[in-house]
């Protein structure tokens, strides 16, 4: 690493710490840019540590029961509540402060609990996203829940096997689940058990395949009409 490069990286990192990402993004050389980004991440982490330490000290002084050094995010709090009510369903390692990872088995009961429990009151299912985590990996369904009374929101992710994806349906808990799950089924092939009318919603009923999966191959013809292929990237 030459001196010039070092200085460039240092300048860029300083600017980025003040909020201007352009200096880092503008670095032409790929290697230098990635080094700058790594340095930036390191600098940010150190800055976070120094600002978190005083607050963690306060927290541990205040409450003996509170064992974590950083304040819990809403997702983590709710994960704790779910884990205590339905033991064995929360996947602790994959959950984070932005989402809760659940096992599919008791999802219906958990959903009802989340909707009815006075501390949670998640009466609004905002978005159901199906995700294909990669060609060798599994499928996942992500739910964004929101509470109109408490005005808070969480995200729940449920993984399911690629070959026979099954997730319990929540369409009786939140009525919009009906159409959202039909759309996820249409695009990914994830079967929602307990859904009373699971059929395709956007594509014709006799379409073959699950389009949004990463390994999707477009069928050649549909009722004799040639299906145009999707271009990979832009050349």
């Amino acid at each position: 690493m030459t001196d010039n490069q070092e200085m460039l990286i240092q300048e860029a990192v300083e600017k980025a710490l003040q909020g201007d990402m352009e200096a880092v993004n503008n670095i032409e050389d790929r290697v230098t840019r990635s080094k700058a980004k790594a340095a930036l991440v390191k600098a940010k982490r150190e800055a976070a540590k120094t600002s978190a330490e005083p607050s963690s000290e306060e927290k541990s002084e205040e409450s003996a029961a509170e064992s974590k050094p950083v304040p819990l995010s809403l997702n983590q709090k709710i994960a704790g509540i779910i884990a205590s009510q339905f033991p064995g369903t929360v996947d602790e390692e994959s959950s984070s402060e932005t989402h809760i990872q659940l096992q599919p088995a008791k999802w219906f009961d958990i959903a009802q609990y989340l909707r009815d429990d006075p501390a949670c009151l998640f009466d609004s299912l905002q978005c159901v996203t199906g995700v294909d985590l990669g060609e060798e990996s599994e499928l996942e369904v992500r739910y964004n829940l929101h509470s109109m009374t408490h005005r808070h929101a969480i995200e729940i992710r449920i993984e399911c096997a690629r070959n026979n994806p099954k997730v319990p349906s929540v369409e009786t808990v939140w009525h919009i689940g009906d159409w959202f799950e039909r759309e996820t089924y249409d695009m990914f092939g994830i079967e929602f058990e307990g859904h009373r009318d699971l059929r395709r919603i956007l594509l014709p009923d006799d379409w073959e395949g699950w389009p949004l999966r990463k390994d999707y191959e477009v069928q050649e013809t549909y009722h004799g009409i040639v299906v145009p292929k999707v271009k990979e990237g832009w050349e």
Partner: protein
Amino acid sequence: MGVVQGDQMVLNIGPQHPSTHGVLRLKVVTDGEIVSDITPIIGYLHRCFEKHCENSTYEQVIPYTDRCDYIASMNNNFGYVVAMEELMEIKVPERVEYIRVIMAELNRIASHLLALGTYGLDVGAFTPFLYMFRDRERILDIFELTCGARLLYNYMWIGGVSHDLPVGFVETVYNFLDYFEPKVQEYNDILTYNKIFVERTADVGVLLPEVAISFGVSGPNLRGSGVKWDIRKDEPYSIYERFDFDVPVGQGLVGTTGDCWDRFYVRVLEIIESTKVLRQALKDIPATGDVHQALPKKIRPPKGSIYRRTESPRGDLGYYIISDGSPQPYRVKMRSPAFTALSVLNEISRGWMLSDVIAVLGSLDIVLGEIDR
């Protein structure tokens, strides 16, 4: 699906029909004139928006978002751009923020004018439709002045906007507002308080708040039922916190809270609120500034995902974006408000007559481009 009784008739409305707001097919089971079940069949306008996003770069997604809800393109862009900027932690200059708010509010007015005009047309009033379109044309002229396009703009980019405001823009919009604000009173006289219109829409298709929330309905449809929920106030984005405007809520002035008239009236009031926001934004907009200043050279968001909602004229427009660190999105899911609004159609129009189904469908203000994507 299901067994049809002997005295029931299965009727098919659409996909080609003068008042289904796009290519929508409704399978209606009626007993005489009373409707017992409606099944909306969608997918005629499905253009694989989400699959396209996975094969384009982040900037190339923006014109696709335009085409989803083609009536309120600026708001679609806005939603996507706000989500991306939150993911990448970009802060845009002040002038860009003001420009975006002005464009979004102008587009909100244009979209509501179209919704109200076509609703009058559905109910049989031919003339207000033309008056509202005349005013909508003036807004589209303002857009054409700025970015050259009347309907699909590709205007808001990640980190900025595509074109700066032209010379004389502020005066043009002030002139438009001075011309337009008295017109809203005119529309109230012609249509909103017209006895026949009130008879057609009051107490029809009542949407209860709990039903609305369970079905994920949002925007003017939810506010018409009495729930005060507006993302611009409750989960503010951009600079909406600086503006002083009200959130109109349906109160059942001429019928029940949550009927078609309330949803209609909420939209009329929202037009007035948007003009207020516009006036404030025009007063405070910084006179100079480079709109391309914060555009990132290469858009490579950090790995992660984000779900962000913004307020489009139809409700909560949500974008769930998953990034894997490459210049192309891994997954973009657009949560469209009209999708949820259409799902509630069966619930609220059962037991009413065929004409009321058309009235209820019009009051939900759906755009098929957004539903099918």
